[in-house]
């Protein structure tokens, strides 16, 4: 009985579900990359503006 309970917990933990936002993991990865690109662009503008 205990093993069945553990298995069901593991299944729940290992199940690959979509993220709570943006529908797919791919979209979330694009968001993280886009965010990095945005910051790099802002830093570049920041550097050139105050140079």
């Amino acid at each position, binding site marked *: 009985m205990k093993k069945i309970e553990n298995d069901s917990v593991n299944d729940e933990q290992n199940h690959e579900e979509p993220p709570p936002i943006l529908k797919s993991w791919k979209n979330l990865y694009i968001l993280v990359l886009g*965010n*990095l690109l945005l910051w790099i662009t802002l830093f570049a503008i920041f550097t050139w503006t105050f140079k």
Partner: protein
Amino acid sequence: MNTIDWTILIASLVFIVTYGVWKGRGSKNINGYLMANRNIRWYIVALSVMATQASAITFLSTPGQAYSDGMRFVQFYFGLPLAMIVLSVTVIPIFHKLNVYTAYEYLENRFDMKTRGLAAVLFLIQRGFAAGLTIYAPSIILSTLLGWNIYMTNLTIGVMVIIYTASGGSKAVSWTQTQQMIIIMCAMAGAFYMIIHLLPQNVSFTDALYVAGKMGKLNAIDFSFDLTNRYSFWSGMIGGFFLMLSYFGTDQSQVQRYLTGKSITHSRLGLLANGLVKVPMQFFILLLGAMVFVFYQFTAPPMFFNTVESQGVRDSRYGQEYRAIEQQYDTASRVKAELVKKLVDARHRSDKAELSRVEELLDRAEEKASALKAKGVALIRKYADNEDVGDTNYIFLSFVLKYMPVGLLGLIIAAIVAASMSSTSSELNALASTTVVDIYKRMVKKDGSDRHYLVASKLLTVAWGIFAIVFAQYANRLGTLVEAVNILGSLFYGTILGIFIVSFYIKSVRGAATFYAAILAEVGVVYCFLFTDISFLWYNVVGCLLVVIFSIPINRFLLKRKKN
């Protein structure tokens, strides 16, 4: 520090320890103690991962880095979001599906027990010493500037961490790190507000940015490709990516943080949130340092921020020479302050001719002040008989102690101690997990009860904590040991990363080949250390590449021999 500051500091630390003990209660089995029952939500995972990486030295040293060298250090973190994505796609699902406690456990599933044992031992050596350093590094700065006893500081920080980490395990570590990050963020935001407030009345925030930019401190991006340039866009994207991949993917102190996530989704979201927040957070901390620099353009700064060293040289046979340089530096700083005021006035009037005239004069004044400081530092190094003496780590705290109001000072000191505690607690938790799961349970006592391993984990947390404190006390006597620990880490890190890269990406290579490749790679790294001038940071790359390069032909050779 006055009574209010002491009250805030003590109350914050007592709260963290009590909260940790309270939150960690009820960890009755090994899964609960080491993995928090794998029940932590994503935002706690994100804060825990961030708090583990951000030690006290991050908050002490980073603003000083911007003060001395500008903001280009932010580029060091550009590879982090990419590494978070790669780990989310590859490592997290594998670790979760195998239900592992440690990263090294996976290596036995993929290869064999000896490869697992080798990686675990390499981790224990490097992280064991690093835990001592995490306590020692802020202690030496706090004791120097506040006059605290270094041994008592080490002991206090160490004992507080041991109390809640040993009693509550992973759950206590994750939850206290959330509180620690809140204290740190509040302190940093408060310090930022105060710095802007302390600038002269007619100097706005954009004026401050203008001054910092003109004096070369807002160099956040450098696209030039130069292998000798430590911080550029390319070194951050490529070198930083490998470093972060290695740190977050193979270092148990980080792996354990995201494996406590409720599910693959929560672990992934925790890492991706770190990928979203880390770069702007570092930018903000560096901007804090740039603003401290601007503040000291209107108020003459000390020539050297490490007061113990500067007082030492004043009292030595170099005292007269040093005082003369200090006096000249003070005069140069005052001349510079007048010029900066003129620069801001000219900016307000949009007087371009005056701006270019003042900028030219300011460049010359800055050169003169820098030359005088270099002369003074050279004298300190001669007196201390140590070429590595510097004051970057002391700049921010020195400023805080002199100019922060009552209350905020106590909060900032609490934040620094909290940052030290957060990193140390993750390290102790990871050291205990690896020792119990990969060494004790696998090789020494295989048939113990769950309760037996739970008690062993608690005792080993205390033992590693005592080791870290003892090492911190010893490090105080041998200054050069700090560098030795960094070199020691670099001697093993590359090899561990190499083992994991082979395990994840070169499916045809088997355990024995990887094990022998790792041994050969380690010999190669030690050879570089003993017989070449290669800088120790490159040992990480050398170790990793050698494991990958050696493993393929060794695997072929072993397969061929088996067939024959």
